[in-house]
Each structure stands twice: as C-alpha cells, then as structure tokens.
C-alpha cells in the first residue's frame, strides 16, 4: 500500500478508521456481532432486570455483577418467589434472574405463572444444581437461562443478554451432559442399574429373565423393582412402560 500516505498525527490506533475513510468504506462497529446475535443496532436499549434471591448479601453481589453492564438496569429486588412474581407483573422487566432454591418450595413452580402473566419477561435461573436432569426440568418449565451459582461471575451477564434476545443459555459443561443423557442420571434419582432393570421390565421381561440377563438373583431384581416403583411413585407395569417410553429408555 505504497500509495497510502498517513499523516503523522494519525495515531496507530486510529489507523483502521483513517484507512476506511480514505477508502470510503463504511465501518459499522459491531455489525458482524449484530448480524450474528440479533442485537438491535445502536445497542442503546436498556435491559431491565428483576432479581430474586432470598439473601440480601447475594442480591447485592448479583446487583454488582449486573450493574457493571452499562446497558443493564436492575429495576427491583425480590426476596421470595411470590414477590418475584408480583414485581415481574408490575415492572414487566426483560429478564428475571431467579434463585431456584428459595425457601417455600422450588421457585420453578412459579415459572409457568410468571411466564403466563408476563410473556415478554424471560427467566434466567441461578442454581447450585449441576445435574442435567434439573436443567432439563427448568428448561421445560419455561426458563431460558440456566446458570450455576459457582459460574455466575462468568456466565450470568451473557445469560441475561441472551435471554433478553429470546435465546437460551445453558452452562456449557451441563449442556454437553444434557445432550449426552439419558440414560444416566434420570430425573427421579434412579441408579444406572435401576434404569437397566426398568428398561427390561418395560420391554416385557419377567423378573427371572431380568435376573438371568444381569447375572443377579431374582430377589435382587425384585428389590430393584421395588426401589424403582418407590422412587417413581408408580405402581403398575403399564405405568413403568409409559415412564420408560417418555424418558427414551426403550430406544437403545
């Protein structure tokens, strides 16, 4: 580019812009990213957030994390799930950051109501539960973001941003596990062996056949079966078959 003569007063940092001006190229900062992620051009739109956690000191930390983003605004803080629902109903924020483990039952139970009352509000949950089954359950309940508390400092901001755009966020490690499952780690705390037994029962095998197949005694199979029925709170074989079908246990 021998023809390009750069005036001395143009700093090296300004060089790309200067070159672009010379070459009449329109530079739109962040355009590639916009096209990729669907951000509204100009990016001056504020993402309004309600946070819900039962501990004031955690809320303070969350606020610090979120207020660090110039385009985020925390509009309300709730200390229980019911208050979260009310505040969301009143403020219609873009995103609700919800601690899943607040006293008075799982906050997940409130999710469908919140989604119904304020469909434009997306929900990001914060949780200690790093099990794929919980993540799946939360996503099914209508949650868009699933962030582990231990990773909140790296992941929460991105999860909120994505949620505001209607995109989901799942901790990557967890996402990999969700994709890899089922069978191990079914939602109801079945062991691997119990899953095997359940699958064979659902496929129509008798206890004796299962025992022979797994090289265990019939009594062991009966015990497994009792545990499975207890854990799943299901009685009949038909119910077990339905459960196995619903959870994709019959496929492999």
């Amino acid at each position: 580019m021998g023809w390009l003569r750069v005036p001395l007063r143009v700093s090296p940092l300004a060089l790309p812009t200067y070159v672009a001006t010379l070459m009449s190229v329109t530079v739109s900062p962040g355009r590639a990213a916009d096209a990729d992620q669907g951000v509204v051009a100009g990016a001056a739109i504020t993402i309004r957030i309600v946070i819900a956690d039962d501990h004031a000191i955690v809320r303070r930390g969350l606020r610090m994390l979120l207020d660090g983003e110039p385009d985020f605004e925390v509009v309300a803080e709730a200390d229980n799930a019911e208050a979260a629902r009310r505040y969301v109903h009143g403020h219609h924020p873009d995103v609700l950051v919800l601690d899943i483990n607040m006293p008075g039952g799982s906050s997940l139970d409130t999710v469908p109501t919140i989604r119904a009352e304020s469909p434009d509000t997306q929900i990001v949950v914060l949780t200690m539960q790093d099990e794929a089954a919980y993540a799946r359950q939360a996503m099914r309940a209508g949650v868009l973001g699933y962030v582990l508390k231990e990773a909140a400092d790296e992941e929460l901001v991105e999860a909120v941003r994505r949620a505001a755009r209607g995109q989901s966020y799942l901790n990557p490690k967890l996402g990999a596990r969700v994709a890899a499952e089922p069978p191990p780690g079914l939602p109801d705390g079945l062991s691997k062996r119990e899953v095997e037994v359940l699958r064979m029962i659902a496929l129509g095998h008798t206890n004796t056949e299962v025992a022979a197949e797994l090289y265990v005694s019939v009594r062991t199979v009966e015990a497994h079966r009792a545990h499975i029925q207890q854990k799943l709170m299901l009685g009949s074989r038909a119910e077990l078959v339905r459960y196995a079908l619903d959870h994709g246990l019959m496929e492999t």
Partner: protein
Amino acid sequence: MPVDPIRVVLADNHAAMRRSLRLLLDGEADVHVVAEVGDLAAVMREVHQHQPRVLVLDLGMCNGSSIEVIGRLRREVPGAEIVVLTMEEGPAFERRAIDAGAIGLVLKDRAPGELAAAIRGAAHGERHVSADVSADVGANRYSPRPSAVVGG
C-alpha cells in the same frame, strides 16, 4: 505502630456471594484478602500456599464435605483459624463445623455487620457465633474453644 493486616482466604462457591463478601472485606483496612476460591480443592491448595491467618469458608460448599475440609485444615495448617459462613444448613451441621474446629460461625445475611468482627476475633483466637445461630447451636457450650468440651 502500624499493624499488619489480617491475611484472609475467602471461599464461597456462589460467585455473586463471593463478590459481595470481597467488597465487604476490601472495605476493612486491617483485612487483606489474599485469595478467593470457589471449590474445596482450591481451598486446600490456597490455604496451604498462602498460610492465611483466617479462612472464611462457606459451609454449604460441595454438599457437606466442607466439614471434612475444616478438620483437615485444622490439622495441616493449624495457624489458620476458620470462620464458617452459614445459610440454612441447620444446627446439627453447624455444630459439626464447630466440632471440626471452626472458631467462628456467621450467618451469611449477618455478614455485612459481623464478618469483619468475626475475622478480627478469629485472628485473636476468639470465638464469634452469630446470635441466631448460637441459640440453635447452643454456642454457649463452646466458649472459649471447643473440641474437648463437646460431648454431643
């Protein structure tokens, strides 16, 4: 005479919580956070490496194995006193933490008012237990230092 700040390792696996605590402690001139950690393996590593005067440890970390860590650290790094942060782990668990050798027990929501004092106390070998907890745990049984006195 200027006093050296109390060197502290801060361990909590909830990132937002840790941030809050860090900010809180950074406001104390006589407290110096030398490391922040989010899992128990890192707790062991950093306490061994930094030999702090006080470890602030989230009791809820890693489903209870924090109790074992308390015992181990008391044996391996006896110069480091342990102040445990608790949410709703319950009296039995909290008592186990004290039995295992923790000198302080602070409710997380009380941390803004109490944590710095608990750290200072710990640095002087003095017990600090949040009021709400002490009623449950029966902390009066624990003064001034536990292990031998505790029957269970």
